[in-house]
């Protein structure tokens, strides 16, 4: 009985801009924040019902030390799928690779948890495509997860409604926030233990699929051009430093016509 949590290591683009040398290491990466919230849900379920928690990540090999840090949150196994042939995967190829990884090695899972989207690409497509790749139902915006008689009872917010579902089969849930009244911080003992734990590395060969169906070759979309976006600078006048006199004048200008 275990729960899989997908955790992406995203790149710090600003940091990259500032760097002059090419010594980019795992310090340039951090866990996608909302994926850590998915992990918090998993750890809460572990505490309540005794599930084991496995994290899976896909990325370059230098993400390994970041992935190792996941042990400090109390996860039981941390897996990194890393291979040059997987580089340049679009959302389809990523979902396919993760799907094959889960199908081949972790098919006895009870639930998969993901953050709703990543900070770097913000498409929010991978979790739902992954659910399709594995043939399971997926639910978004989860606000409560309970286990009742071999079923999951999940409550999610859909537009302006709150919907409760009972799911007998395996399922995938995406979250936008952590569980209420539960914080999952790294424990000192786990931080120390994490140093001696090894991240399990798997490559595209372990997926038992042809190279043509993963990575850039297996992708259906490609970026053909990029250009910088210019923000509109509206600035018409200097900032005012807060004082009652200046504010009075500004309030009339700002709100005069509207109120």
């Amino acid at each position, binding site marked *: 009985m275990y729960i899989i949590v997908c955790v992406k290591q995203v790149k710090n*683009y600003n940091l990259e801009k500032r760097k002059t040398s090419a010594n980019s290491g795992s310090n340039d990466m951090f866990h996608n924040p909302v994926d850590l919230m998915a992990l918090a849900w998993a750890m809460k379920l572990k505490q309540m019902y005794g599930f084991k928690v496995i994290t899976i990540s896909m990325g370059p090999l230098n993400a390994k030390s970041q992935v190792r840090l996941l042990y400090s949150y109390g996860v039981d196994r941390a897996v990194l799928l890393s291979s040059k042939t997987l580089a340049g995967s679009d*959302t*389809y190829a990523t*979902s396919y690779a993760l799907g094959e990884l889960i199908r081949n090695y972790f098919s006895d899972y009870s639930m998969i948890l993901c953050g709703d*989207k990543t900070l*770097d690409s*913000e*498409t*929010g*497509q*991978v*979790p*739902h*495509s992954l659910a*399709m*790749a594995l*043939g*399971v*139902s*997926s*639910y978004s915006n989860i606000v409560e997860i309970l286990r009742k008689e071999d079923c999951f009872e999940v*409550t999610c*917010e*859909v*537009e*302006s*409604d*709150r*919907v*409760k*579902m*009972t799911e007998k089969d395996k399922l995938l849930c995406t979250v*936008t*926030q952590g569980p209420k009244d539960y914080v999952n911080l790294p424990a000192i003992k786990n931080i120390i233990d994490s140093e001696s734990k090894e991240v399990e590395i798997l490559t595209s060969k372990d997926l038992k699929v042809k190279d043509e169906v993963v990575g850039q070759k297996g*992708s*259906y*979309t*490609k*970026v*053909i*051009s*990029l*250009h*910088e*976006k210019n*923000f509109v600078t*509206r600035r018409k006048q*200097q*900032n*005012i*430093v*807060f004082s*009652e006199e200046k*504010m*009075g004048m*500004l309030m009339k*200008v*700002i709100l005069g016509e*509207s*109120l």
Partner: protein
Amino acid sequence: MKKLCIFIEHKDGVPTSNSQKILYMAQMLKKQYGYRIIAIVMEQNSESFIEYLKTIEVDEIYFVTLNEKNKLLFLKEEIDNLVCFLKEINPEVAWATNSSCYRILFPKVAYSLHTGLCAACSDFKYDEDSGRINMVRTVFSNNAYAQISVHRSRPVMATILDEKGTYNLERNLTFPEIHDITDRILLIRDNQAIKIMKELESINLDKSQIVIGLGNGIHDKSDMDLFEKLSRLLNHAAIGGTRELINRQILPQNCQIGSTGTQIFADIYIGFGISGSPQHMQGIEHVKKIIAVNNDPYASIFQHADYGIVGDMYEVANYMINYLGGKDT
């Protein structure tokens, strides 16, 4: 003839602004490159919307009448049915609104069709050499535009970002064919498994004329009282905030303003304690007047604001409350 499927939505029989944009983009493709427009409506109570669609330039209309529970969650078999239907139609392009329904449905459909999907696109480009449609969207935290090609599969799938514009849609010249495909797509459900609970308090961030935006400068959830008071004095301005405040559980999820939350189109936006990350700025770029309050004179929001106030957000909020006739808190 190349076909273009558009999945559009309505509110009380009127197309949403997101749907109007898609209809407008579709009519451009038809006019310039001869695409056949196939409108697909999957909604509750769509009769008057379909009547409306008959009056504008679309070639075929397919509709699925949903009930309350279908609308919320499509079952896997229903998605398979939709995929079969799309395979038969065999469109060159398929676009949908960027609503929560299609943001979930489209990745599933694209995966099953083994094709590429571009999320939250703002525009398209027609490649004259290949005769293909490429999609345009912002990437790298809203810092750049990318043109994305779906190069080896069909259809080119995309969800289209709402820009709340006004679009002059072409009136129809021929009467469109109309097909009811409800029975083909939907299953009869065991409704026991789904329970709908009370409606959440709806927040009209995107419709409010004045929006108060809160950032990480806020200390504690109890401070919300101050800004709620200000909101009441500003004709019940909507209150939204940055992702950090959602993560800190100071504001609920549907209050998030930005690229991953709601885009706002207010007349006035007052940002308290907001630094101005590109993601947040994307959410407020269509606001007519931006007022920024921050104690850091170098906060990047000041570059994009019409008025900048350097000062403590609490002092400024209290001043505004006093000015507007409320008592100091």
